[in-house]
Structures are given as structure tokens and as C-alpha cells.
């Protein structure tokens, strides 16, 4: 693991720098701490930071950039002709990487000398045979171009790594000397170190922005790529979802409407379950319950929110589905064909959302000023009349916000619908039929697929974009409403 070693060596240089820097600063002050501008350890840290930060930064950038350059150079080396009919450049490239890895392992095990592995004139049947003898997994069709590409892949990576190690070590050492030169009594080491720490803190805070940018870029690029292969109008207004399984594309129908309909239908069923139960629970907990009941019931309800969604998914598939099928299936009312249906997923998702609605509404009802209650009681209203006619109207904007947040949760929920709602995309009104959602189709289109060139795989990014925009819109709206409401009473 040379990378790990490089990292450790840089850290070791920094540790040496810390000790030296501290000692040098102390010596320059004549051994008296009071003559230093900063505490001695700041001088040490100053040297350590100057050693580590530039070196590691360069190392990280190099590690990201090098594979990209190597990949593009190598893919340029592979002639068109060696990419087989039903294959792609990506597959050939992974073949190249595998062969290179096999060569590496063979050299490491001593089955092959370094010169032989690099020898560009080596007969490739011989190399293949020797790789196989060395017990390295080599696919049957290692062709001449692939072998050549693998050889230069190895050489480029090896030289790249060597140059990187040199530069990183040189940077670390020069950082060390830079820091040591500064280590004298008058140097404001604390200010320098604190500025560096501050930069680190800002960097950590910016990761949130980077994540958002990453999400948007990865969605946008692939979505644009998808719309190049598949017309956008067919995607947004198509009423049929029938991806072809051959992976060739062309014959697939990729209309988003049935998926959106399934998503909304299931979410509506879930909200119909969760909103009344959650709202009544919140009203009871905040207005009627004694402190002891509240202390027990509130955490118990919140346990429902802490349970992983896969548990709910299994619950839908194996418990609720068969139960509903027993009542509404062929033995009962005859409305239901299979356990997986809109009703199953919606019901279970509703259970999951109860604590979301109840906790948020509870907070909001508690924020209504006591004076409004007292006023209402003073006019002779009963408690329920106060709640219905004073508290709920006052809390309404906040409650709407809470419901919108719950709706965005429902739209983005994955595991319950993957397991509980079925796989067929339909535009139907019967809640006992199987339907599917945007999230479930993202999972089924992308799982185990390493090839991102077919519209069937790329459509998942367009679906993800749709989902992201929908939930983001709902969230922004909900947060806006809730904030407006809070301002009203603060």
C-alpha cells in the first residue's frame, strides 16, 4: 500500500516538524516562554500545518485527476474495431483494467518479471498463458490491443504514482523548512494557526454546498444525456411505462405519468391515514394529556419514526399485504388480486408518517400563545370548542407546513413502495391494484447496472431529477409557511 505509506511519511515529517519548530521557537526566546508571541505549541503546529496541508492537497487532487487522464488516453488507444458489436467502450476499459491488475498480481507473486510484463513486443498468447498459469483471472478474449492498452495503463499509472510521490514529498519538506524558518520569537504563530483552522472550518461548512452542487450536476448531466437519446416530451407526457429489457433501446416506452400517478396515489392514501391520526394524537398530547401520559406516549409514537424503512417494507410485503388480501381478495370481496397494492403501501407508509405529523403539529400547537386559550375559556367555551375554533385556526399555516413536509417524505420514500406496491406501472383508480412509483423505478432501473449509456439506465437520472425538484419544491414551500407562522407569534 504505497499510498498509505506516503501518507504516513508525510505525517511523520509533520510530527518531526512540530517538535523542531517548537524547540526552535523556544530556543530563539532564550528558553523563556514569556518572550514568545504565542504559546510554544502554536509554533509546532504552524510547522506541521505548513508541512501537511499543501502536500495532502496536491495528493488528493492528483489522485482524482490521474485516473481521468489515464483513462482518456487509454480509451484513445483502443481502436474502434476492437469494440465488439454488442459491447461498449466501458466494458473494454474494465477488461483492460482487469488485465492490468492480473499483470500486477503476477509480478507481485513472482510469476513474471517486471521487464516481461512491460515488454511491448511480448507475444500476447504467451502472456495470456502465463497469466492463466499464475492463477490470475483473465477473460477468454484478451486481444492484442487490450493487452497493449493494459501494458501502457500499468506503465502510465506507475510513472504517475512515482511523480506524485516525489512532488508530495518535496512539498512536505519545503513546507517543513518554510515553517522552521518562521519559528522565531516574534512570529505570530497563533494568528497563522488560527487562520488555518478557520479556513478548515469554512471548508467543512462548504461541504453542504458541494453536496448540493454534486447532486444537481450528477442529475443534470445524465438527464441531458438521457434527453439526447429519448425525446423529453415523450418522457413528460407519455402515458405508458414499458422499458425494453434487451438494453438496445428504441422500443422502450418511458413515460413518467404512470409513475407520478402511482407516487401521488400512494402518498395520498398515506396522508389520509397519517393526517387524522397524527393530528388528533397531537391535539390530545398537547391539550388533554397529563404530563405522565405525555412522557410515555410521545416517545412511544416517535419510535415509529425511528424504525428503518426496510422494516416497514417487509411489514407491508409479508404482514399487511396478505392481511388485506384475505379481506379484499378473491376469498373476501374480490377487489384485490395480489398482496402488493397501492392500499398496502399507502397504509404502511401512513403508519410511518404518523409521528412526523404528530410531532410537528404538537410543536406548532404548543407555540400558540396561552392567552388565546385563556380568552376562549373566559368566554365560556369548552376545551374542544377552544381547540376547534381558536387553536387550530391559529395553528393552521403551521399544520399545513407539517403536512407538506410529510407529503414530501411520502413522495421520496423508497423501500416501502419497492416491497409493498408492486412493479407494474398503471394509470388506474382502483387502490387495490398494484402500481409503482418514481423511487421504485429508480431502484429497478439502476441496480446492478454499470453501463450508463442506454436510455433505460439513464432514465433513472431523469426520474431522480423529477423527484428532487418535487420534494425540494414541497420542502421550500413548507419551510416558508412554517417560518412565516413562527414569526407571527414570536
Amino acid at each position, binding site marked *: 500500500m504505497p499510498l498509505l505509506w506516503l501518507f504516513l511519511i508525510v505525517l511523520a515529517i509533520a510530527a518531526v516538524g512540530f517538535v523542531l519548530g517548537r524547540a526552535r521557537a523556544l530556543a530563539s526566546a532564550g528558553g523563556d516562554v514569556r518572550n514568545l508571541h504565542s504559546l510554544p505549541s502554536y509554533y509546532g503546529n504552524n510547522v506541521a500545518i505548513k508541512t501537511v496541508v499543501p502536500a495532502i492537497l496536491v495528493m488528493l487532487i492528483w489522485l482524482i485527476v490521474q485516473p481521468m487522464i489515464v483513462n482518456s488516453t487509454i480509451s484513445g488507444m483502443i481502436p474502434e474495431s476492437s469494440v465488439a458489436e454488442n459491447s461498449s467502450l466501458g466494458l473494454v476499459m474494465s477488461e483492460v483494467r482487469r488485465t492490468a491488475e492480473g499483470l500486477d498480481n503476477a509480478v507481485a507473486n513472482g510469476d513474471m518479471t517486471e521487464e516481461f510484463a512491460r515488454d511491448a513486443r511480448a507475444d500476447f498468447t504467451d502472456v495470456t498463458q502465463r497469466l492463466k498459469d499464475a492463477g490470475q483471472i483473465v477473460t477468454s478474449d484478451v486481444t492484442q490491443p487490450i493487452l497493449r492498452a493494459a501494458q501502457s495503463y500499468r506503465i502510465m499509472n506507475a510513472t504517475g504514482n512515482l511523480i506524485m510521490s516525489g512532488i508530495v514529498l518535496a512539498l512536505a519538506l519545503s513546507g517543513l523548512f518554510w515553517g522552521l524558518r518562521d519559528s522565531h520569537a516574534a512570529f505570530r504563530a497563533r494568528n497563522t494557526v488560527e487562520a488555518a483552522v478557520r479556513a478548515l472550518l469554512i471548508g467543512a*461548512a462548504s461541504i*453542504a454546498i458541494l453536496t448540493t452542487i454534486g447532486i444537481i450536476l450528477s442529475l443534470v448531466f445524465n438527464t441531458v444525456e438521457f434527453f439526447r437519446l429519448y425525446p423529453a416530451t415523450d418522457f413528460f407526457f407519455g402515458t405508458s411505462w414499458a422499458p425494453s429489457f434487451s438494453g438496445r433501446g428504441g422500443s422502450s416506452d418511458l413515460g413518467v405519468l404512470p409513475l407520478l400517478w402511482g407516487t401521488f396515489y400512494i402518498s395520498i392514501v398515506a396522508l389520509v391515514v397519517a393526517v387524522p391520526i397524527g393530528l*388528533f394524537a397531537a391535539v390530545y398530547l398537547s391539550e388533554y394529556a397529563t404530563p405522565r401520559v405525555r412522557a410515555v406516549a410521545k416517545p412511544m409514537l416517535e419510535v415509529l419514526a425511528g424504525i428503518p424503512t426496510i422494516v416497514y417494507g417487509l411489514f407491508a410485503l409479508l404482514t399487511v399485504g396478505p392481511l388485506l388480501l384475505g379481506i379484499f381478495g378473491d376469498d373476501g370481496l374480490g377487489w384485490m388480486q395480489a398482496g402488493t397494492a397501492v392500499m398496502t403501501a399507502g397504509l404502511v407508509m401512513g403508519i410511518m408518517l404518523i409521528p412526523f405529523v404528530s410531532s410537528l403539529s404538537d410543536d406548532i400547537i404548543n407555540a400558540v400563545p396561552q392567552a388565546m386559550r385563556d380568552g376562549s375559556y373566559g368566554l365560556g367555551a369548552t376545551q374542544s370548542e377552544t381547540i376547534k375554533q381558536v387553536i387550530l385556526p391559529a395553528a393552521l399555516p403551521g399544520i399545513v407546513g407539517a403536512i407538506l*413536509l410529510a407529503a414530501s417524505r411520502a413522495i421520496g420514500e423508497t423501500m416501502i413502495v419497492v416491497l409493498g406496491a408492486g412493479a407494474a406501472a398503471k394509470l388506474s383508480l382502483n387502490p387495490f391494484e398494484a402500481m409503482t412509483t418514481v423511487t421504485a423505478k429508480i431502484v429497478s432501473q439502476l441496480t446492478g447496472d454499470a453501463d450508463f449509456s442506454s436510455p433505460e439506465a439513464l432514465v433513472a437520472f431523469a426520474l431522480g431529477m423529477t423527484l428532487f425538484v418535487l420534494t425540494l419544491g414541497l420542502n421550500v414551500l413548507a419551510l416558508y409557511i412554517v417560518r412565516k407562522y413562527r414569526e407571527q407569534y414570536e
Partner: protein
Amino acid sequence: MTDASIGGAAAPRKKSSIHELDARTRKRNASEARFKAFGLGAILIGLFFLVTLAVSIVRSGLPAFTETVVDVEFTLSQAQFDEAESTLFKTAAYSDLFIADLRGTLEERGMQVAFDEAAIERLLGKVGGTLREFYRANPEQLGQPVAFQLPASSRVDGYFNGRVTRETLEDTRFLQGSDLDLVDALHEAGVIRQDFNWTFLTGADSGVDNPGGAGIGASVVGSFFMMLVVLVLALPIGVAASIYLEEFAPQNKFTDLIEVNISNLAAVPSIVFGILGLAVFIQFMHLPQSAPLVGGLVLTLMTLPTIIISTRAALKAVPPSIRDAALGVGASKMQAVFHHVLPLAMPGILTGTIIGLAQALGETAPLLLIGMVGFVARGYPEGFLGGFTEPNSAMPAQIYTWAARADASFYEKAWGGIIVLLVFLLLMNVIAIILRRKFERRW
């Protein structure tokens, strides 16, 4: 004086008393009681769902922790060994010997059950192969009685758990009605018994056709390495970001931008993070697919908002007098925060981090997108570093894979996996609660 009192011809005024309720008050009181009952009912419904969930998990999941084993004491002499090794079908010869022995055992206890080789194979799998392997590896055991514990097939398991009954059984090549008579007889003789299934806790995914050998051990290891990545990355980054936002950030556009981003990321569906991981870490950076390292990175990005929000609350709870005192004796702002505020906020930060980790541990959808599906978890990783980069699964993804398989025997494993997962979550939450109770300070 009013007109009403004149003459007394007006209708007698309805008398009301505070001692008896009039119709309107009664109606209002009834509606009050009704409303209260609705509220109570809603809470009870919620709790009922919780109990139902718990009961169905425990009831369906416990069978995964037991397995059915057949105890057989078997002696093979050197002569029998040589003879069996010299035949053409070696494992068949061992099977014959085993069946003869089993028949002897049953007859000794006075039981008459007819069975043939095929029935034994249906119940116990290929016994001959197991025996032969054992004796070839341990030739010194020849001629001595050896106690074998042979695992029974998953359908026999199902018979004991009540999943397979005589009524629902159809004769297939896996199990026939007559086999159940044999199982009952063996059970009576004490040869077949239920045992704790260690394979389930320590094993790896066994493939589509072997539910009996499936275990969650490998994916627990995968989850562990992912949590390690999340802890190592999310805790320092989250704390650093929170310190900046809470203590140093000036009121400007950039700070607002960060705040808005954090609150929005907290509500982005988890599957979108999976797409991000697939596109950035695998498609763009070429990190290995199905690796716990990538899973950990994705979950880090997902849990960061949670950790940042709870850390900021913990920092906010430290009273300003602590900062003022530190600044007053000459500490710099940085020193005041790192030497005084942060240590005091640490219990709150750790509690929030553990809860964030628990949330990450149960997340499934993003893992499916980066290839950490259950059937990848075929074995334990080699070495510590291999744990990060070798393909593996995680507990929830393994559960999903089992739940999605056609064979109903896997459902039991899925429920069992959920029990294991929930035990881990419970443990983490209990630790968080203990931390909070022990170190919580009211200022």
C-alpha cells in the same frame, strides 16, 4: 318596567337551573367527550400499530435463530473405509453405511419406519459426501464412535416452525408427505432436534437455493465498516461545520447559502443521495463498486445535516458566560471555543452523532444503487483494509435481498435479520440516552 311583565299573558319563561343540564349544554359536553375520545383513540391506534409491528417481527423472526439438526453417532471401521473408497460411487457407499446405521438405531429403540436413500437425501442433503470428507480429513477417528450433527433441509425446518404443514404440503422432489412420518419418528427418538442457529449470525449469503445456510454475519461486517467511515468523516466535518456556523460565521449571503443548503439536504430523499454516489463516486471517480467505503461516503453526506443540526443545538446550549469568561482572561476566540465550549457541548454532540449513525445504519435505498445488494456478501473480507474496498453488503440491503427472493424460507431469514438490525439500533439509542442522562447539564 317592561311590557313583558304586564298581564302575565306571555308564555311562561323556560326556567333553567345550574343544577340540571339543559339540552344544549348536554350536547356541548357530549361533543367535548367525543373529541377527547377521538384524540385518545388516535394515540391508541398509533400504539396499536407499534405493538402489531413488534409482535409480527418477533413472531416471524425468531424461527430464523433456530435450526433443525440430526444427531447421529456413527462408527466407521478401517475395513469399511477401505471398502467404500475402493468402490466406484464413493459417496453412495458412505450413504448406504449411514442409512444402515440409522436403521439400526431406530430398530434398537423399537420403531418401524420405512425409508429409503432418496428420503434421507431430501431430509439431510448429501450425507455421504459430508461423511467422506470428514473421514478423509480425520483418518485417526476411524473405528471410534463419532457424534455427527447434520443440518436438516430448510423444509424440515419449516415443518418444525409451522411454516410447512401436512395440509399444505405438496409432494415435490424437495419433500414428500411420507418424509414427515420419518421426521416425526426421528423426533420421537430424539435424533432430530432444534438447536440455536449460529450459522445465521456468523454466515454469509448463501445464494438463491440454499436458505438454510444463509447468514447475516458478512453483511454485519459490511455495515460495521460503513459506520466506521461515517463516524470518521461525519463527526469531524459535522462538528467543524457547526462550530463555524454557530461561532464564527458572519451575517452574509454565503452563510445564508450554507444554512439553506443544510436545511434542504436534510429533506432530500435518501435515494437521491444514492444517485449522487453512483454518479460521483463510481461513474466519475471510479471508486470500486459495492464497496463499504463508497457506501460510507454516501451515508456520510446523508447524515451530515442531521449531525450538524444536533451539534448546533448542543453548542447553542452552552451559555455565553463561558465564552465571556474565557475571552476575559485573554483567550482568543478560537481558544475559547476549542478549549471551553466544545468540551462542554461534547455529550450533546455525541448523542446527536449516535442517533445520526443509527439512522444511517437502517438506510437501504442508496446502498442498492451503488451495488451493495445482498448477494454480493458471499464471505468475510480479508484483512482490515479489505473490509473497506472488497464488495460487501449491509444489513438492511441483505434483508431486502432476502425479502425479494421467491423462496418463502428466505422471508423468515429477512425477519430474523430485522431482529438483528433492531438490536443494533436499540443498543445505539440506549447508549445515546445513557450519555444524555449522565452528562446532561442544565445551566
